[in-house]
């Protein structure tokens, strides 16, 4: 038995050596699998990884979409720690990428340094804006509070207990901006309808609230969702990437409450929870990323910052899908009006 195993392993070894030796002559091009003149777009994730169900994943979706629509070639490198950012950018510089997309504020330093060191390279960073803007970097930021405002208004209209909840992954601006918009939307509803719907988990004035301090510990999401439900909240919006999955699971188990997703349309990305997902506050980083890629192909790429808004559809409120019945036609009309008011600048957030 053992001898056989040794024999097989040796055989495999010899075979692999022989084959790879042949391969050298037979297919020298395989080393670089795609050598046509495709535009190469390369993404560097932050430490969340490519499948973080958050901005890394959404930006990558933009690249994959562009592979289909624009015929580019996409690649990515995952960073495991801060020291990897510079290393990964260097790797892609060496690989001669046409556009390097970095994700998240943590890579901002490394992106700045690289943009200075390689003025001919093109960069785009998701969720960060440079001030002043850099000549070869496009910063993508999002007014997610605009869409979150709509979600808050909707939640206030749908709640039966008069209480809605939210919590964040970490107290950083890209997270709290969702929560700000959500609270303001609820306040708007109270103002218009004379109700007294309460938001648990975030205080805009004091900038204090509930946070998991983690973007990957789903158990913590579950715990916070349960305690919010215990406090009476029946609609919860977690702004914490995959931690939200824990919250969704807790809501589904208990029942009688609904979930609002963030970043992507959760009814589509997490079908398991489609029946409790009221809507999602979409931060369409895939769309903006695809737009930046397109500008590279068109030759119109210039450095600066891109702001995703309701107006340019960089942010949006997702459809209601399975829970359409909960939303009255009147509410739908009101939401449309609010959206128009925000775009028109009648309603000003901040």
């Amino acid at each position, binding site marked *: 038995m*053992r*001898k056989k*195993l*040794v024999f097989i*392993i040796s055989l*495999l*070894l010899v*075979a*692999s050596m022989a*084959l*790879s030796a042949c*391969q050298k002559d037979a*297919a020298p091009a*395989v*080393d*670089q*699998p795609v050598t046509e003149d495709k535009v190469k777009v390369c993404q560097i994730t*932050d*430490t969340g990884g490519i499948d973080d169900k958050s901005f890394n994943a959404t930006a990558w979706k933009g690249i994959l979409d562009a592979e289909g629509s624009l015929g580019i070639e996409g*690649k990515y*490198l*995952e*960073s*495991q*720690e*801060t*020291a*990897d950012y*510079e*290393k*990964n950018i*260097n*790797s*892609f*510089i*060496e*690989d001669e990428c046409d556009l390097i997309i970095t994700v998240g*504020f*943590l890579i901002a*330093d490394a992106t700045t340094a690289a943009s200075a*060191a390689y003025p001919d390279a093109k960069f785009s960073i998701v969720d960060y804006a440079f001030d002043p803007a850099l000549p070869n970097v496009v910063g993508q930021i999002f007014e997610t509070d605009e869409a979150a405002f709509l979600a808050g208004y909707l939640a206030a209209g749908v709640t039966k207990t008069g209480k809605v909840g939210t919590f964040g992954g*970490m*107290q*950083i*601006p890209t997270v709290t901006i969702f929560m700000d918009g959500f609270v303001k939307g609820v306040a708007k509803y109270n103002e218009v309808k004379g109700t007294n719907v309460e938001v648990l988990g975030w205080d805009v004035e004091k900038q204090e609230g509930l946070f998991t*301090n983690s973007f990957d510990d789903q158990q913590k999401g579950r715990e916070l969702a349960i305690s919010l439900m215990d406090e009476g909240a029946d609609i919860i919006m977690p702004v914490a990437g995959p931690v939200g999955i824990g919250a969704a699971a807790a809501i589904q188990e208990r029942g009688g409450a609904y979930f609002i997703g963030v970043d992507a349309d959760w009814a589509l990305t997490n079908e398991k929870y489609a029946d409790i997902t009221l809507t999602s506050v979409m931060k369409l980083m895939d769309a903006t990323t695809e737009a930046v890629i397109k500008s590279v192909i068109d030759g119109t790429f210039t450095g600066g910052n891109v702001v995703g808004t309701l107006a340019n559809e960089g942010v949006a409120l997702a459809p209601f899908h399975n829970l359409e019945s909960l939303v009255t036609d009147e509410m739908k009309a009101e939401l449309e009006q609010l959206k128009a008011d925000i775009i028109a600048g009648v309603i000003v957030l901040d």
Partner: protein
Amino acid sequence: MKKEEQEKNDLGKAFFRKFNKEDGDEPKEKKNFWQSISIPALAILTGLLIGAILIVLTSPRVYEAFAQGFLTGIGTAFNEVYVSYKALLTGAFGDIGKIISALQSGTPHQIRVAINPILESLVVSTPYILTGLAVALGFRAGLFNIGVEGQLFIGAACATFVGYSIKGLPGFIHMPLALLAGMAGGAFWGFIPGFLKAKTGGHEVINTIMMNYIAFRLTEWLLTGPMTRQGAGSMPVSPVIEKSAEIPQFFPSPIRFHLGFFMALAAAWLIWWLLFKTTWGLNLRTVGTNPRAAKYAGLSTVKTTIMGMSLSGALAGMAGAVQTLAINRSMAIGLSSGYGFDSIALALIGNNHPLGVVLSSLLFGSLRNGATRMMVVSRIPIDIVSVIQAIILMLVAAPGIIQAIYHLKDLKTGDNKVFLSGWGGKA
């Protein structure tokens, strides 16, 4: 009576002769060397073989090729492995062809890019060496320091703070000062569980794990609070350190090779010297190997435990300090990819010997560095390398598997025994 003594002494001498001469020093030494190297070497080979299978199984191109035909599938599978491992190799050590042509071209930038891989491997190895030493030193003192990760975070925070808050110092003072601050921070973080162990018997495994949690949350708080960068909008990232606090890099971009690597080697040498050449080291090893005998011999286990844990923490803190002062130049969350935990593996593969730790760190550093290239070239996820590392570690920790697979004779070398007792022995 006298005669008997004589006879007995002769007998002793005969024994000496038997062991020293007849068996011969040289072949025995050689055999021991090959024995001690054979398990890790075969473990690495096996790890790579299993990694190859995983590469084949996870590659969509292989499935596509199999859909076309069996032979095409096999060919693609081998090609996939070949391409991946070639990328791993060139990513870790550089492409000889490229180096030669770069040298011929004489363009400094091209030369730098060509030789960067091997230097980058050394850069990646540096924190592995330091954290591996921290764990190994702990094991030698009979302490299982699982708190290296937390000590690394505290060390990084202290070094960063000194690095950006003090201004106007010359580099030859500021950089060492920041480094020392990092070491002191790590040492303090190691001192606490060491003190608790020595004075109250509180188990260091539990206490170091708890200290990790405190360190993670504390640094998060520091980065969003007192140490946050002005204008970063309360992002968890510290200000950039002063130029004078930077550990110098030797070459311009993209080579990140820095002085910290040599500092790590120096630390390894120093730890070796302390452990095996000084009274302090013998003291520490005695307490670590047999605390009862240490007490019998009149040694202070209390002092040694506290010292051992603090020094271990200092090494971990140094790893954090070197990473921030030489590479990151500021501190942000996501500082470590788990050095504190990988280092346990490194210490074990290195048999808790500084040289062994350096060698195993170089191996892991090269693997990880090469993995980036592998991912760029063939889209093989970097996780494959983590799996390969884990398999190598398991095979080294359970030599029986390797012996069974390769049908080796039972190698009951003393090394293996020390290795195993280091792992669980004195908990």
